[in-house]
């Protein structure tokens, strides 16, 4: 069974918010209608987004590290938001594991958003329905797009390639290899939601240089320096000269 998901590499995310803006741009122009902004140009601007980049500081100053943390729907394999929906508007697709909301069935009771421990769902104040990341399902299978562009908008926008996209159930996919080899992990594993999206941790890249590698022990030039005591006796050379 396919489970499409994102793998976000926190080691290379620079917190530029390109994924946020490209997500908003694509999804506000899609078939489901605009993602509304409320009071965008006045006091207390707010609006609906599927993706946010947050920033955390780890450690005590001056020994700190800045972590930029993109956060969107994790498309959980055991998604708690789906069974609580009273209308069946919230559902998980059999064919690719994407969790979606049928905006025509949603009654806007907000119960699914209570049942998501990650706060991945946002209620649209103007459409009065619950909205969430669709993993750009309207791009993934669109044959009018060039094949290279059949990916979520955020993945295409990321300038540092911090966002990988693929099937986490296929052990040979790019995302599965990244999870396996780079220590990919899930958020809040304690609730058993089994998020499909994974995060790759911060990794220190260090070059380890041993002293031996700087000073050659078997340096032939050094070998020539090993000079033996010269003989005071007459040698063949002396005799010939």
């Amino acid at each position, binding site marked *: 069974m396919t489970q499409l998901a994102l793998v976000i590499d926190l080691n290379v995310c620079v917190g530029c918010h390109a994924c946020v803006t490209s997500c908003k741009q694509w999804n506000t122009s899609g078939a489901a209608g605009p993602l509304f902004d409320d009071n965008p140009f006045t006091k207390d601007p707010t609006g609906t987004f599927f993706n946010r*980049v947050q920033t955390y500081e780890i450690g005590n100053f001056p020994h700190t590290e800045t972590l930029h943390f993109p956060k969107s729907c994790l498309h959980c394999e055991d998604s708690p938001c789906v069974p609580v929906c009273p209308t069946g508007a919230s559902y998980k697709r059999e064919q690719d594991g994407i969790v979606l909301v049928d905006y025509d069935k949603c009654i806007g009771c907000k119960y699914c958003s209570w049942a998501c421990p990650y706060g991945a769902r946002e209620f649209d104040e103007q459409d009065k329905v619950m909205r969430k990341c669709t993993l750009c399902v309207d791009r993934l299978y669109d044959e009018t797009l060039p094949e290279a562009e059949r990916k979520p908008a955020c993945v295409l926008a990321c300038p540092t390639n911090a966002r990988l996209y693929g099937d986490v159930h296929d052990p040979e996919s790019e995302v599965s290899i990244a999870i396996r080899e780079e220590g990919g992990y899930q958020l809040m594993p304690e609730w058993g939601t089994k998020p499909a999206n994974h995060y790759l941790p911060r990794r220190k890249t260090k070059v380890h240089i041993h002293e031996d590698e700087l000073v050659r022990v078997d340096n032939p030039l050094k070998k020539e320096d090993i000079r033996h005591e010269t003989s005071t006796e007459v040698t063949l050379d002396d005799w010939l000269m």
Partner: protein
Amino acid sequence: MHPAFSVIFLTTLIGTGQGLFLALFSGQTYSAVNLLPAQHSSFYITGSLLALILLIGGLMASFFHLGHPERAWRAASQWRTSWLSREVIALPIVMGLVFFYGVFHWINWEVDLFGNQLPGQVTLIIGAMASVAVFLLYLCTGMIYASIKFLQEWATSLTVINYLLFGGASGFTMATAIAAYNAPTLVGFYGSWAIILTLAGLVTRTVSLYRNANIKAVSTVQTAIGIRHTQVQQKAMGMMGGSYNTREYFHGKTAAFLKSIKYIFLVLVFPLPIMLIVAGMKADSSLLLMLAFVVQFVGLMFERWFFFAQANHPQNLYYQTI
């Protein structure tokens, strides 16, 4: 969580309506076995009408919670998995049965089904069915909250028990006040049960308050972002103007405000109504009994506000600073 007034009204109104119906039916069953004097059908008609008004009021309030109330009928479809859907089914069933309970008292249709000349057998059967539905509705209402496992303040059987006992207490208090007007012989029965249920509610709510005060959060900012370091501080939440995530999951009040609401409901729900019921029964004053109900009902709205506000959603870990 952010307490929504629609849900506060929904849960308090239907809880009281259900409790009032249970009071009516227990009064009728007791009188059927001659433990209490039989009442004129007008008492049951008035009572079930009031219970129905409360249930309809709750239903109306719930519509204000919905973004698309015109699609509310769809909410009955997912009863296999969703407690909310089950409540959506149970509520109209309760309303229908309470309606027919009142109607059959009104038309006074006597059929000797048990063959023992017992009066009101049709209403006893409808009432028994309605009582089962009422208990199921309490279960659904409580489980809507208790089934969300990561809202640790709610994820306990105490949530269901509290909904049952609070609904029962306010319903019996209301029944006491109604009885004082047109069934004076039942005042003692309803009054004592109202006090017993209120005291039982005091015990279970105190236990749940104690439990919630000592909850250890399962999720931390470390598990939320997966960074194993003791010092993690959020510096930005990704937006400056706030969002649904900053509005829906936090009550937006100070800890002192929350605490004061707790003390207000602890006074309004428990000691004050009990004193008023005792005084009302002693002085034979229907006004004091009515006041007892009003005070307790207002107290329950404070209790419900506190119930919602106290629940700390783990998503708040992602929204700690602008």
